[in-house]
């Protein structure tokens, strides 16, 4: 029992050791999924984010950046604990980094209640896009339905009349298919919700082929998508009904782990590594130099989250203690995004362009995404109208 007492003493010491705020730096709490099967995404976001600070010599917008990195283990329970640490012990100025909506949604009330700014580098849930929009909540990536609804548009344009839909049985899966159905005008050959974390899709693929659709739109994030694509292609189904997906299931990370079978998959995204603008050329070159691999959407989103913070710090002249001014600067921030034009809508979700990409084997024999068209220009999500924030 005396052991317990010494433990307590240890905690007290630890508490004393943390220092008080210094005005000459910006404290960033970066929490992401850095272990487990979802780690690939979190690592890309982190690498993109850190690239900006590295480029500025450890600063963001002129202020020394004190970035605490924490792993949420893809668990809201752990996430909540980290948020408590960020807001109550480290008293960070900004929190960012989360990959998954099932972590973000449960912990967001605590972040917002503490008055801390959150910048989402990935998931953009419907919840905070409409009535519940919040001046402290920014999404630098996309609204969850955006890329799917862009794909609905693509399929209309390509006169695909009979599409089969497949997604995991969880809110994100339903949200994505809703986004698709919002724009897609044709018939739905079938709509299947699979087990979260499912390994084998042979049964679903067989049923799917029996329905004889013109095309398949699937949303299966992470390893599920890898499994599905490998199995779909080996079943020879790609010749009968081509695969269409939001960009997250056909990005460079998936391509690297799937390889050849990826060729021919069409996907939509707000960015592509071959977009021709100076900011993107610099980003892709810097990222490849620093990490030795092509960046993904996630990396770009993490990169822009950091650029956004840097721009706001710069615009406020480093006076981030004035929360209202900092928020205002974030909302109005201008920075050179690799995706090209970017600005915030009234709900702090992006207004941006969406592109159609195709996975191809390029001249050098490398399998990668190639931009083949623009789907939307200055696209704003449909929920912003319900946001009362100005």
């Amino acid at each position: 029992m005396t052991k317990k007492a010494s433990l307590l003493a240890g905690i007290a010491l630890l508490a004393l050791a943390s220092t008080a705020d210094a005005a000459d730096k910006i404290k960033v709490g970066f929490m992401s999924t850095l272990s487990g099967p979802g780690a690939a995404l979190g690592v890309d976001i982190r690498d993109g984010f850190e690239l900006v600070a590295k480029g500025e010599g450890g600063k963001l917008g002129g202020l020394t950046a004190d970035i605490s990195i924490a792993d949420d283990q893809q668990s809201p329970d752990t996430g909540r604990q980290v948020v408590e640490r960020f807001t109550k012990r480290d008293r960070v100025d900004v929190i960012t980094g989360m990959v998954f909506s099932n972590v973000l949604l449960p912990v967001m009330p605590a972040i917002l209640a503490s008055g801390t700014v959150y910048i989402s580098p990935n998931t953009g849930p419907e919840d905070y896009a409409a009535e519940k929009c919040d001046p402290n909540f920014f999404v630098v990536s996309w609204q969850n339905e955006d890329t799917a609804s862009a794909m609905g548009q693509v399929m209309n344009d390509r006169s695909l009349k009979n599409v089969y839909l497949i997604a995991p049985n969880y809110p994100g899966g339903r949200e994505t298919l809703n986004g698709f159905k919002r724009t897609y005008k044709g018939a739905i050959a079938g709509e299947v919700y699979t087990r979260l974390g499912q390994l084998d899709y042979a049964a679903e693929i067989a049923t799917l082929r029996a329905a004889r659709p013109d095309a398949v739109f699937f949303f299966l994030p992470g390893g599920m998508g890898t499994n599905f694509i490998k199995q779909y292609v080996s079943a020879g189904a790609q010749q009968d009904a081509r695969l269409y997906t939001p960009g997250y299931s056909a990005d460079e990370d998936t391509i690297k782990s799937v390889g050849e079978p990826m060729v021919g998959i069409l996907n939509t995204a707000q960015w592509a590594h071959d977009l021709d603008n100076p900011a993107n050329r610099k980003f892709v070159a810097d990222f490849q130099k620093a990490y030795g691999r092509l960046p993904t959407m996630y990396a770009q989103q993490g990169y822009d989250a950091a650029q956004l913070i840097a721009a706001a710090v710069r615009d406020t002249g480093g006076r981030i203690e004035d929360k209202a001014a900092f928020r205002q600067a974030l909302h109005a921030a201008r920075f050179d995004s690799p995706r090209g034009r970017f600005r915030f809508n009234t709900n702090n979700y992006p207004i941006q362009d969406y592109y159609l990409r195709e996975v191809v084997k390029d001249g050098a024999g490398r399998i990668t995404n190639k931009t083949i068209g623009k789907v939307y220009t200055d696209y704003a999500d449909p929920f912003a109208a319900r946001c009362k924030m100005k």
Partner: protein
Amino acid sequence: MPLTLLAEQALNGLQLGLMLFLLAAGLTLVFGIMDMINLAHGTLYMIGAYLAATVAEASGSFVAAIAAAVVGTAVIGMALELTVLRPLYRRSHLHQVLATFALILIANELVRIIWGAQPIALNMPAALSGPVELAPGLRYPAYRLVVIGVGLAAALLLYVVVVHTRVGMWLRAGASDREMASAMGVNTAWLFTAAFGAGAALCAVAGALLGPLLAVQVGMGENILILAFVVIVIGGIGSVRGALVGALLVGILDTVGRTALPALFRALASPEVASEAGPALASMLIYVLMAGVLCFRPRGLFPARG
């Protein structure tokens, strides 16, 4: 459901079942002979897949990849047995669960440090990457046919070894009564290490074969480990025959459940209820099967120990 689709789904169930059997066979041997709960069995499967992917990338040969994965994983498995697991045989199941849970954590982190957090590629030989026409209107992925073939061959080989060889006799004796086995003069220490190595090799076969169908990533072992446990508990721990029956039951029930249940619910209930209850029940089906089997046969279908 048209006949060809039914046949295809049956093959799918068979293939899933046979892969589970490869994992479950090693697990049930280790379990039965050494009375050892090895949660890290899935870890060996992961290591097998990673080794196969690495060798395939370097050599370009899928066969070499499988061979290297089998040898490498068996060696790692035996090394693990000699160092960490051996002191645990006489400990309670509790300690075995804890220690092998720790091994999962350690192995996952090490793999992440060595190979990175991104999933890595392992592709099937180009010759097998398409479908073959088995009957008019029934096209089936060639690769999955190979998987079925290897699974059947492994099952047959195990059957011959366990039932018709001296080693198999020792194994069966060990599974039913360890004291008797050592009284018969069997060097149990050697037998345990060898059995563990064989279990690890079977894991590697499964890992290497499934790699081209599934994501090769950190944590891939845990999902499938739970399935393998379900299989051996249904079959009766320690029984290879039980593992085969259990694996096929699970494979087929899971496949049938995933296709038939949502359709059934769509026919019977409102679309709202159907889209929710169908997948939910399908996910649970194998656990329901396991609970049901244990309810009526608390030691599984083919209890190895009397």
